[in-house]
């Protein structure tokens, strides 16, 4: 079961179609954009888990800018760059900007699916960690309220006992009065 939604950004219609078919066959939900502007529109209106973008595209928005746009909208979106071998330095630069990974052309689909699986696994681990934290928070909040009430109650009782002790051991006062005073504290 693959429930990731993937946005493919590439100016080449052949590559777009190829990626769409192969990803759909693996049960990924696929969205397509032919340039950075379309990608931005789609990202603004749809939930996307992974952006798969070409590094070099005609126009003013290239793959690097797509990373910025996606990360600005939602830091949890993962971006995988597709690069020609000659532009690996740029791809490394892109990783520093927050890209999850890069793939060299021609695309090796086995490799691509492995990376996507890794992202899906990572997301499900994060999700369960988040669920556990929330469950822990609820338990902790409840336990804290109970413990704090007990802590204060014990503190009050201790204070009463200390007062009673000091009254009862005060030899300067008549013992009957001491007992009466101590009883008053106890009953209040």
């Amino acid at each position: 079961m693959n429930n990731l939604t993937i946005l493919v950004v590439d100016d080449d219609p052949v590559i777009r179609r190829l990626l769409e078919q192969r990803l759909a066959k693996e049960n990924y939900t696929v969205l397509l954009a032919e340039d950075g502007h379309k990608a931005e529109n789609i990202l603004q209106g749809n939930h996307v888990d992974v952006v798969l973008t070409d590094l070099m595209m005609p126009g003013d928005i290239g793959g690097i800018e797509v990373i910025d746009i996606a990360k600005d909208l939602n830091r949890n979106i993962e971006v995988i760059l597709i690069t020609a071998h000659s532009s690996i330095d740029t791809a490394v630069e892109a990783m520093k900007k927050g890209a999850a990974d890069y793939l060299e052309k021609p695309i090796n689909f086995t490799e691509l699916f492995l990376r996507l699986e890794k992202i899906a696994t990572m997301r499900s681990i994060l999700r369960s960690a988040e669920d556990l934290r929330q469950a822990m928070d609820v338990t902790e909040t409840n336990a804290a309220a109970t413990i704090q009430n007990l802590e204060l109650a014990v503190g009050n009782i201790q204070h009463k006992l200390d007062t009673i002790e000091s009254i009862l051991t005060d030899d300067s006062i008549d013992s009957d009065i001491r007992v009466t005073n101590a009883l008053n504290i106890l009953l209040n």
Partner: protein
Amino acid sequence: MLKITAEELKIIAQYIHEISGIYLDQSKSYLFETRLGSIAEELGCTSYRALYDKARRDPAKLIERQIIDAISTNETLFFRDTSPFDLLKHKILPEIIDARAPRSPLLKTNIKIWSSASSTGQELYSIAITLQELLGTQMAKFNFSLLGTDISDTAIKQASYGKYNKFEIERGLPRQTLQKHFTLFGDTWKVKDELRGMVNFRKLNLMLPFTGLGKFDIIFCRNVAIYFTLEDRKKLFNKIADCLADDGYLIIGSTESLTGICSRFIPKRHLRAIFYQKK
């Protein structure tokens, strides 16, 4: 995974207690196996006894460090459980600032705060952020000493470096606070120098005597004593009482209690939080 024997459990549990104060329930052998198994394998040990012998013989104590890192829990977040920081901001800091006001306006107010199990630093940085939020431009009138200590060298190193991955940081910190105090590099956020300059971290084993720490005005000791035996908790909070100013404040974990542990403190409530002061 390498299996641990009953005899090894006893030896290792005692060793861990000795080096860290952490008490591990010997009925939970899986805990020892999941946390120490990979270290044993990595070092080519065929048993936990062999790991123990190797750790004992290691003069640089690198294995001891590895074991402490593996055993200690570093579950911590920025502003994890907001109530102690609200308490700090709205109750404790205003009170201590009044109490410590210097005689001359030319002098600075000295306030010492200690995060006694600072882990990877989130608690102490959260305290520093709280101070800046509360005092703003008034900060120059104060001389804050913010100390974070932990048993783990690795945790201290990360805390000192002030670098956190996005999962460690984005939960708990509002975007505005994040951008004000941290710089983004790829997927990691690094504490800005201004905040970094306010804090100090160093290694400390809470089981050993607290020498040279002086007196603190505010001490945070949250969610660390839970890993200690009752006897060790008593010793710990007694030492904490010794190094807390007479009118100082102690904050412990929200599910922790000092009942039956230290009678030198009394609990006080402020809104939904509890803090302790000396009797």
